[in-house]
């Protein structure tokens, strides 16, 4: 359980002088679910691609399943499976044909492979759809086949790059459930990347928070949260019916406020420092004409951890790329009043 299956030291990837991944070090232990959390462009996918031998590191070294990714890429490939951000499937082929093709590339004996394909299809309850073309599937079904495709060689290590990206909530839950089952039933080590705090929190044994190509924190979710709750920072959620930009600005300028984020039309989340910060913030709101209808003292989430570590919200950047439904429309989107800590 404690043996490292992935060891990374000083791993760097530069694109035209820009460091997408900047001298990162970390270990992944056998049997754990390790998560990379960070906004788009933080370097998560690039790291995964280097570990999967799809991209050659500019500097540093990494071993996966005991093999060096640069010197013995073929050996590494035998031991890993990859669920990439884009579906690795041919729409005009059936589920079974897709699995067959990729299985054949691993030199699995035919009878073993055919039996394994049946088992995998049953594993994700897709046996009924085995001979339907992938193109006719829903996104959630496609992703289920896509995940078992990565398992066709029974990898010791499974890489998942944003496995729930673009899925509806129900399918996301299914895929997370699937990831957990793969981890427990097959004892597969899992490395996943996500920009979703909840996902990282729910799934991962350990999380590396990555930003601008650097790992800014690496620990269990519980320990990461202590980074926030262990300090004198309090996370408060104020309900202010007459919330307005002027009020937000004045709130942000208070000396005890580390940062504040508008959650929706009437709610604002405030990270405040100091013993008597609660009073100070309420006074500040009232002095500027705001009415406080309710206050909640929030348990710190990974979101807060990220905010504290990087001074930015993950969602702030993600929302530019991933359209969100419902209340996250343009008018109701979270607005960051003060994005700089310190």
């Amino acid at each position, binding site marked *: 359980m404690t043996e490292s299956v992935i060891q990374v030291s000083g791993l760097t990837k530069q694109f035209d002088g820009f460091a997408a991944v900047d001298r990162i070090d970390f270990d992944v232990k056998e049997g754990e679910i390790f998560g990379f959390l960070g906004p788009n462009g933080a370097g998560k996918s690039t790291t995964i691609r280097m570990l999967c031998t799809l991209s050659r590191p500019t500097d540093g070294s990494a071993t996966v399943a005991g093999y060096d990714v640069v010197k013995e890429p073929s050996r590494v490939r035998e031991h890993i499976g990859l669920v990439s951000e884009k579906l690795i*499937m041919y729409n005009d082929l059936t589920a079974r044909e897709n699995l067959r093709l990729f299985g054949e590339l691993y030199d699995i004996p035919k009878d073993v492979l055919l039996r394994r394909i049946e088992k995998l299809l049953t594993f994700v309850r897709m046996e009924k759809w085995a001979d339907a073309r992938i193109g006719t599937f829903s996104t959630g079904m496609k992703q289920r086949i896509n995940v078992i495709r990565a398992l066709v060689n029974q990898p010791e290590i499974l890489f998942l790059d944003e496995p729930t990206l673009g899925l509806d909530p129900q399918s996301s839950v299914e895929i997370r459930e699937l990831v957990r089952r793969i981890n427990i039933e097959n004892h597969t080590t899992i490395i996943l990347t996500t920009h979703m705090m909840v996902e990282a929190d729910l799934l991962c044994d350990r999380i590396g928070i990555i930003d601008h190509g650097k790992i800014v924190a690496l620990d269990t979710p519980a320990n990461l949260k202590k980074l926030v709750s262990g300090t004198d920072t309090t996370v408060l959620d104020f309900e202010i019916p007459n919330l307005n930009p002027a009020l937000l600005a004045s709130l942000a300028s208070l000396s005890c406020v580390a940062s504040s984020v508008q959650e929706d039309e009437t709610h604002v989340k405030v990270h405040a420092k100091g013993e008597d910060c609660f009073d100070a913030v309420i006074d500040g709101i009232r002095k500027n004409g705001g009415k406080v209808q309710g206050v909640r003292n929030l348990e710190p989430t990974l979101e807060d951890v990220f905010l504290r570590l990087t001074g930015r919200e993950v969602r702030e950047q993600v929302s530019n790329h991933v359209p969100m439904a419902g209340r996250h429309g343009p008018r109701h989107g979270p607005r960051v009043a003060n994005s700089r800590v310190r």
Partner: protein
Amino acid sequence: MSVKRVLRHSGWIAWKDLLEFSRSKLRLVMLVLMPLFMMVMVGYIFPSGTSISNQPVALSNQDLGVTIPMPPTYVNTTVFMGNDFVTGLTAINNRTGMMDLSSSPGFDDIRTRIQDGAVSGGIIIAPDFSRCLMEGEQGNITIVTDQSNPQLSAMMQSVLGQTITAMGKQWAAYNLNVTYHISVTQAQAMIQPYNIQFTGIVPGNPNYFQFVAPGIISMVVMMSLMTGLPHAISYEKDVGTLDGMLVAPTSRLSIILGKVLAQTVRGVVQATIIFVLAVLLFGVVVYGNLLLVAGLILLSVFSFVGLGILITSFTDKEETATMVMMTLMFPMMFLSGVFFPIQQMPWFMQDIAQVLPLTYATTALRKVMVLGAGVDAVFTEIVILLAFGVILLAIAVPMFRKAMTR
């Protein structure tokens, strides 16, 4: 062992590609239609051979005739030799069907009608036609051509010129016979002492199909490899499925080989369709060994593959790949002597043609298909094609491996 593995993997990748291809009905239909269109278009649009048929031609007989004392009574009679000429020409035309003759008052009318596009040429018999002939001079006949269509006008010039010259010789022979009592055969030998005969080294008259079919076959094979290959790979790169193969313990060689295999099958299927159509519908006769033809087609695949892989390695996106391909393909198509003989081109274009593998593929295939040449006759082309393949692959394969791990 490793070679076997590479081949086995490439077989599976080719299987995948072909299966994918066969799942689209439209693509299958296009597979057959494309070569069919190509053959029909090339066959009917380009002039076939040196004959013309049913060309609308205006004929203006301006002959004023000549009045001479006609034997045996020696009464002055007006003779219109132009009419005899028209009768003769009409008789020939009825036999060959080359012209659709209509009468015309003169040059101005013919000019207007050529400008209108109503006729493609004209024949004018001069007013002094009969007089000249009777007074021992040459009778003048003018052929008017449509300069906006150089190819047709050249053809009219040569066909009408030959026809009228032949009529003139016949007339001369007749005169000699009547005047000097020389036999017609002797008279003909006097007028035209050299008898020219044209003969090819294989039976039959060559037509344009015969010339163009081998070229189109090698061109289609080239197209499927040059466009199909980069497209197949860059498309998979774009949608991300290529990662699935790259992350498996499969040699990069297997991937490229599998793709090449699938594209080759596609190209050869199309080449076969063209071949069959050419023989069945367009009367192309193959004088060479069919096995040699097949061998040459496969050899040309080998010589184009490297180029396809090279382009694939250079281009990162499907769109770029398609653009690069189109830019390269057109000059290759036209410079390689597929449609027009290389010998007709200016020297610098001939020089460019020398460095294109398609030139040698086309030449070799043409020699074998049209002239029935054997291996020894196309040995040079075979060596050059092999060299092209080896050199291009030696450059392309390492480039491809490098490009796959960026």
